């Protein structure tokens, strides 16, 4: 069939602008797919290799203090492959050049040899000498963010005593891929760092000789994690253990798992849209081509070409366009994937970076795009095959037009004939008109989605930091402290308001559903830390009962007014039943709140404090930080403005790359669809338009018929696109949702407006291109040919 193939290639060449537009849409889908999936594979492989090579533990537990002998009992639990006990403690740090206090987590290293579990990768420098005072390994992220290096001293308040730490090496650990403290939204590498110190030195500093306060376990293959945790909890309970947890609840591992989950959502949602649009475009273009080739098809049939040969001939052009798109997309996707993988690799500080193109992913992407081509061409090809040759030989019967609503309403005289032609044209082929609008609507939708990320983050920051957490500083104490500290804080320089809180680790249970979190006891009168209900109205804490975050309520499957069990995980570990007295809207974590007095009653304890929220006069900020750094009781201080900055920076780094890609792709779709629609309607109408020119219509008048239809289709597409965009954002919110954070489904009016403006601009550009073609309309030639 060489001659037919030659026809195919020449026709593709003839419509190369249209074909290229479609190929680029396919390419965009393939690129996003290849990028997401290969980055996903990279992340998984790198993470697993990292976890494996550095012996990341399966189960973690902490305890205030347990004697070393307990370790032998733990080791005897069935199903344990390895065990590592450690001393872990958080200290307040005074880092040179950093105004506000930072928090360091000190972790003990065996005095000799590598840790059995949770090994560290020493990037530079050496291990601390167990005989030397204050030598530490510092985490790479902390060192880099604070521009400090080996040899630099850091002041630390350790166990209430000021001590100097000296950095002797820079390290990475699978346990802190995400260097984030429990309760924080995102890592803050500048103000939270991980340090490793020899066990002997830590025992001395924290009076932990012959004891440990942290244990990690690695399980044998096939061992039951739940059973091990249960037995471990039983062993640690007498020493005040607050409950062991598996790797899936380890903060860093969970962040990483969430990231992978959201990437998986991207890998599905975006390519689906692109492939859908591509299939639609192929259908439109091919239907059109087959429409104009009625006579050719009839001829081929008359010469004895079989239906399957003809079907294959037309299908092939879709497949070629798709393949070209897939090839471009695979190359671009790999390039983007390696870029994204590099970005992730730096962000997560993996010790190794190995990214190679995954051939299987590329094959799957090609398969998907070919499938889209087949799906998109199916209807058109079927039409070609079904066309009875004799019927195709006759010119198509004049399209049956009907009176439009306009005539029925008797408005005919009021509208010019060109407008009537536009309306009747649209009305004659409502399905085609709808499909064209739908295609353009997809571009609008992608544009809406491209803005959704930053809209949601803006809303999130406003919600989190202006409407709920309105404090400037959050101070956390080493251990619960008497309310007297309240007055001390109040008298620190620059402090305007103090609101104290108490936090208690708990397990909340409703039937077979349970969740480990902490209950925050808040004072009744609050302005710095507010809770808002789902209508964003402040919640007054009830005198009894617990307020749950919406996600926690969902996890526990409870509604307002229901009763749940609270198992306190510290102190006397009471188990009590409480009423759910409210649901608070929150976008991060799974938190529970109570009135502080009610919490004290629940615990049957006197009033103590875990920390406080402060409002601070900015003028005295530095003075205040200096004081706090020197305050032994203060374990950590988080500064809200720094948190917001960190939040924006981190998100920006991740989102910006993705977003610029999406905007580019949205433009590809918009132009691809609008240009194709315009070109096709030009082809379909060229005869009609030429006739109009011949009988005396002006260039402008025929332009307005053609472009008027396009304008109507574009205008109809905009609300449709908003709706699709909103639905896809809702799907993404659902896809990205995790215990750690949720995205609000918020799209600003400006984003809707922007999507409309960009689409209209793309439509205008396409219209202009088509308008120029209209000027070259060869009247005689068009009228001479039969089609």
């Amino acid at each position, binding site marked *: 069939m060489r001659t037919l193939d030659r026809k195919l290639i020449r026709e593709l060449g003839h419509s190369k602008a249209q074909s290229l537009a479609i190929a680029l849409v396919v390419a965009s889908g393939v690129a996003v797919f290849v990028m997401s999936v290969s980055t996903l594979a990279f992340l998984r492989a790198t993470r697993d290799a990292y976890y494996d090579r550095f012996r990341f533990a399966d189960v973690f537990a902490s305890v205030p203090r347990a004697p070393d002998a307990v370790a032998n009992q733990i080791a005897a639990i069935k199903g344990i492959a390895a065990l590592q006990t450690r001393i872990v403690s958080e200290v307040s740090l005074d880092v040179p050049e950093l105004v506000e206090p930072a928090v360091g987590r000190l972790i003990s290293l065996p005095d000799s040899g590598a840790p059995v579990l949770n090994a560290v990768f020493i990037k530079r420098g050496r291990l601390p000498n167990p005989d030397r005072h204050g030598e530490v390994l510092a985490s790479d992220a902390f060192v880099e963010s604070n521009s400090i290096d080996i040899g630099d001293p850091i002041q630390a308040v350790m166990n209430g005593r000021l001590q100097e730490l000296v950095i002797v090496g820079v390290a990475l650990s699978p346990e802190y891929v995400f260097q984030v403290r429990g309760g924080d939204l995102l890592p803050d590498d500048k103000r939270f760092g991980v340090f490793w110190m020899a066990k002997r030195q830590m025992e001395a500093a924290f009076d932990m000789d012959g004891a440990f306060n942290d244990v990690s376990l690695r399980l044998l293959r096939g061992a039951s994690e739940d059973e091990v945790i249960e037995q471990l909890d039983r062993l640690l309970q007498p020493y005040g253990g607050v409950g062991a947890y598996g790797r899936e609840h380890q903060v860093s591992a969970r962040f990483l798992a969430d990231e992978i989950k959201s990437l998986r959502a991207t890998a599905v949602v975006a390519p689906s849209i692109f492939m859908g649009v591509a299939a639609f475009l192929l259908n439109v273009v091919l239907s059109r081509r087959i429409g104009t080739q009625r006579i050719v098809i009839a001829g081929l049939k008359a*010469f*004895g*070409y079989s*239906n399957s040969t003809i079907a294959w001939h037309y299908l092939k052009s879709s497949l070629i366009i798709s393949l070209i798109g897939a090839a471009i997309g695979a190359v671009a996707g790999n390039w983007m994937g390696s870029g994204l993988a590099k970005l992730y690799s730096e962000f997560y500080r993996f010790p190794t970076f190995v990214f190679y193109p995954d051939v299987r992913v590329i094959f799957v992407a090609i398969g998907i795009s070919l499938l889209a081509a087949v799906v998109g061409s199916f209807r058109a090809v079927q039409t070609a095959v079904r066309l009875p040759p004799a019927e195709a030989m006759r010119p198509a019967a004049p399209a049956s037009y009907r009176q439009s609503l306009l005539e029925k309403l008797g408005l005919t005289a009021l509208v010019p004939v060109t407008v009537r032609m536009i309306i009747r044209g649209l009305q004659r082929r409502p399905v085609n008109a709808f499909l064209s609008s739908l295609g353009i609507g997809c571009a609008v939708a992608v544009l809406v989605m491209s803005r959704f990320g930053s809209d949601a983050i803006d809303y999130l920051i406003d919600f989190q930091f202006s409407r709920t957490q309105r404090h400037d500083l959050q101070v956390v104490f080493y251990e619960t402290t008497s309310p007297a500290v309240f007055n001390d804080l109040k008298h620190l320089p620059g402090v305007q308001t103090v609101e104290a809180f108490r936090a208690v680790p708990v397990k909340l249970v409703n039937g077979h559903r349970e969740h480990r979190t902490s209950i925050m006891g808040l004072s009744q009168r609050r302005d710095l830390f507010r809770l808002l209900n789902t209508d964003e109205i402040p919640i007054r804490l009830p005198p009894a009962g617990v307020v749950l975050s919406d996600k926690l309520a969902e996890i526990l499957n409870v509604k307002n007014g229901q009763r749940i069990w609270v198992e306190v995980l510290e102190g006397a570990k009471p188990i009590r039943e409480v009423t759910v007295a409210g649901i608070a809207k929150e976008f991060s974590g799974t938190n529970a709140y109570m009135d502080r007095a009610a919490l004290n009653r629940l615990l049957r304890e006197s009033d103590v404090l875990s920390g406080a929220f402060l409002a601070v006069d900015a003028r005295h900020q530095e003075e205040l930080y200096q004081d706090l750094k020197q305050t032994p009781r203060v374990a950590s201080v988080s500064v809200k403005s720094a948190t917001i900055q960190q939040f924006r920076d981190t998100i920006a780094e991740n989102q910006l790359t993705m977003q610029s890609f999406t905007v580019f792709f949205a433009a590809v779709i918009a132009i691809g669809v609008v240009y194709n629609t315009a070109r096709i309607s030009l082809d379909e109408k060229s005869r009609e338009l030429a006739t109009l020119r011949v009988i005396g219509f002006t260039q402008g008048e025929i332009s307005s018929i053609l472009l008027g239809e396009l304008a109507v289709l574009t205008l109809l597409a905009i609300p449709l696109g908003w709706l699709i965009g909103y639905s896809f954002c809702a799907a993404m919110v659902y896809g990205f949702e995790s215990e750690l954070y949720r995205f609000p489904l918020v799209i600003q009016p400006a984003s809707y407006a922007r999507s409309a403006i960009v689409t209209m601009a793309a439509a205008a550009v396409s219209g202009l291109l088509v308008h120029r073609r209209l000027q070259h309309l060869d009247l005689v030639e068009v009228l001479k040919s039969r089609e």
Partner: protein
Amino acid sequence: MIADEQHFVFRMRGVTKVYPMGEVEVHALRGVDLKLFPGEFTVLLGPSGSGKSTLLNILGGLDRPTKGTVHYRDQDLTAASDRELTWFRREAVGFVFQFYNLIPSLTARENVSLVTEVSSDPMPPEDALALVDLTDRRDHFPSQLSGGEQQRVAIARAIAKRPDVLLCDEPTGALDAATGITVLEAINRINLELGTTTTVITHNAAIGQMADRIVRMHNGVIAEDQRVETKIPVAELRW
């Protein structure tokens, strides 16, 4: 040409064709009986709408009658499957259309190859083009050829497969008289040299004078069927 009643190429019996055209039903043929014989050059005359094209399409296996039977030699075309009809068209029939139906993206020679590639005993495309005097234009695209040349390419395409029958639908309809003559000469030459049974439909009565037989159609029925006693050479036709 002697008509042996038993050795026909085509035999139509009581052929009726009704088809919808937009929102109306068109009765294109109303019970047509017709036999065409080997080597015969027949001209089907009639005004537009008389059913000529429908008749030709049914003969060529492009369409099926609503009622009646059509035989090609001993094959019942009305009972043939789509696949059999495709095969029949591929092997036995050469078509020439009023508007040439050349594929604009293919050169003259490639348009001919389109047919030779699917038939079992074709002549080389170059030979077919030589038969219609287009050897020096064979690498031109349709847009670079005049109407008469395009129609001759279409004829070359039709005869390149050495068809048993050549069916021409208004082959000169879109051409001026002088060009029309050259096209008719080409068709006549095929008929004489290759002995191909040829049927030409036209509304131009003058063309009938070059044929063996004239069949006049009117309003879906055969109004007159006459043998031509004295044929006029093509070059002397005038209209």
